[in-house]
């Protein structure tokens, strides 16, 4: 997925998430704070962080900023429970969380504190510790005067710091321009169709930007998930003070966290990328095929046509882009742009069905390996398990001959297998439904004409060179 951040930012973000073993919801919150997807005021979390650090300084009486750094980097304070266990009963805590003496309106709960400390680690360690000394110096000053003024001053510094970081590592201008174009294209509509995605891609191709079809589809995924949240934002942007629109913020915050936390493709992509070593339940090629089909989550369930277009013509287009980058190898540009090599929808549908069938078979084998005590089971279940046992002996894949290793391998892959099998089955059902409405062959030929025309026109210069 393309998208608005550089490698440095991805590494800084991942280091905090991995180091603290953050939950998915907390990672999602941190991702939003880092990218700035917080409203009405994207500096609010830094204001809270500065106040939390001041409250912790009041509570723990640090010698200097070092002690605050130690708190912020401590992976043992990554959860609400850990924070409550460590700080409840301290001078600046009430039953629900931290308060700051001299700042009557400010409060954070224990889960909020755990998140803020993760943000603290991020601002301290960002740019692979590039500003560690500077931020530690700021914490020295706060430790010397941990009051409301000190907190407000630190909040301003941190806000500037993170804002500079975003300018350097989150190149959002291109994404923003594309979303502006998308909003303009839809003209205020919130609902869109497969045809809209294709037409918007064509328009972008004609305008000279030449984004990948998959990239454009990704933007629609974000739009679909986020559009209902941004309604009414205009009223919020005039928020005068940090405390304004508290209700709005809570609502938006909850909804926005759902959006990224419930974003399941990360799990699917990560599941496929980190598939456990062991018996070849899936080959490398099968994993690649699945990743390709499932990358536009949730469109593989809801928009099978766009999923097919991305798998077939999206692949043609990335082939052209790769060829342009390399400058050599494989078919030439004009030939590729004509889409003669594009995989047909019928072939893709068949392949998805084969993958779904394979995964279902692996699930039955997993059950047979796992359920050894079968006396109490019904006749039918026993027969199914016996059939899976017999089937297991027919599988010719690496690692399937060693029963003990196979059992361990399936146990390790169980969660991933269940989830990928479920999503692939949903893809298969969506594709079957589409095939009943629209004959795949006619649809493919019509699309091929559209994509060939758009690609040939867009890459005419390079094709002629």
């Amino acid at each position, binding site marked *: *997925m*393309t*998208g*608005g*951040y550089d490698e440095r930012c*991805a*590494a800084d*973000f*991942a*280091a905090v998430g*991995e*180091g603290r073993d953050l939950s998915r919801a907390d990672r999602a919150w941190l*991702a*939003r704070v880092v*990218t*700035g*997807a917080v*409203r009405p005021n994207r500096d609010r979390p830094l204001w809270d962080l500065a106040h939390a650090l001041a409250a912790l300084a009041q509570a723990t009486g640090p010698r200097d900023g*070092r002690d605050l*750094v*130690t708190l912020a*980097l*401590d*992976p043992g304070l990554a959860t609400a429970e850990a924070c409550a266990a460590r700080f409840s009963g301290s001078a600046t805590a009430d039953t629900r969380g931290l308060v700051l003496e001299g700042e009557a309106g400010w409060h954070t709960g224990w889960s909020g504190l755990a998140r803020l400390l993760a943000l603290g*680690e991020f601002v*301290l360690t960002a740019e*692979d*510790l590039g500003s*560690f*000394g500077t931020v*530690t*110096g700021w914490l020295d000053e706060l430790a010397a005067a941990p009051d409301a003024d000190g907190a407000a001053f630190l909040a301003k510094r941190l806000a500037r710091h993170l804002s500079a970081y975003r300018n350097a590592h*989150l190149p*959002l201008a291109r*994404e*923003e*321009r594309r*979303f*502006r174009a998308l*909003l303009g294209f839809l003209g205020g509509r919130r609902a869109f169709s497969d045809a809209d995605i294709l037409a918007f891609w064509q328009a972008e191709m004609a305008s000279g930007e030449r984004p990948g079809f998959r990239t454009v589809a*990704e933007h629609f*995924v*974000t739009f679909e*998930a*986020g*559009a209902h*949240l*941004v309604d009414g934002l*205009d009223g*919020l*942007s005039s928020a005068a003070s940090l405390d304004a629109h508290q209700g709005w913020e809570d609502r938006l915050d909850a909804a*926005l966290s759902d*959006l*990224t936390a419930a*974003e399941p*493709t*990360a799990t699917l*992509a*990560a599941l496929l*990328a980190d598939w456990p070593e062991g018996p070849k339940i899936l080959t490398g090629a099968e994993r690649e095929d699945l990743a390709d089909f499932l990358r536009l989550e949730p469109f593989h369930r809801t928009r099978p046509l766009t999923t097919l277009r991305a798998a077939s013509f999206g692949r043609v287009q990335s082939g052209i882009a790769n060829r342009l980058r390399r400058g050599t190898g494989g078919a030439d540009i004009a030939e590729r742009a004509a889409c003669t090599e594009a995989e047909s929808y019928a072939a893709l549908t068949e392949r998805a069905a084969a993958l779904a069938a394979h995964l279902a078979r692996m699930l039955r084998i997993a059950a047979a390996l796992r359920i050894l005590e079968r006396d109490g089971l019904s006749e039918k279940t026993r027969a199914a398990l016996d059939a899976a046992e017999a089937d297991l002996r027919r599988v010719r894949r690496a690692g399937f001959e060693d029963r003990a290793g196979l059992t361990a391998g399936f146990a390790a892959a169980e969660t991933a297998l269940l989830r990928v099998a479920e999503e692939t089955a949903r893809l298969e059902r969506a594709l079957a439904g589409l095939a009943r409405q629209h004959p795949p062959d006619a649809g493919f030929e019509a699309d091929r004409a559209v994509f060939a025309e758009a690609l040939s026109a867009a890459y005419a210069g390079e094709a002629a060179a």
Partner: protein
Amino acid sequence: MSDEARLLAELHAARALMRAPPPTPRVGHAALWAHATRAGGSPVDLAVVRALRTDPDATRRYRTLLAAQAIAHATLAAAASDGALLRRRVGPFALEILEGTPPLLILRGADTRPPRTIEAWRDDEAVRLDLPPPVEGAIVLALDSAVPEAEALGRMLRDPRCAVFLL
């Protein structure tokens, strides 16, 4: 201007960040920080010690953490040794080795906030020693050849490339 496109772009980037592949495992900042702030004589994390010996990235990050919490530090000696006697400045401190049996390390300038620990780094070799409290403005440490750390400190400090952290 409408903020919608901006928020969607930020959400898009947040979603993408969530999907970024996990990093290759390495020693975490927290473990390096615990090592950098350890009290003298306290147990050390052997994985960190190993990483500091073998992994230049871990060493670089560790030295960044050390520098940030040091009272003073210097990565290179401003003036080279004259052979018998070494003098160098580390921030506001003057550091001197007086040859003899044993050689003495003398640290001056510790009036307001005396350092409690010295850590020296040369290439991938590191040594850390606790310092005694100052007497009449000077901290004096015997670089006794019978104590391996003290002997190593004396040897390393004579090399102008040796980095010094006063903690």
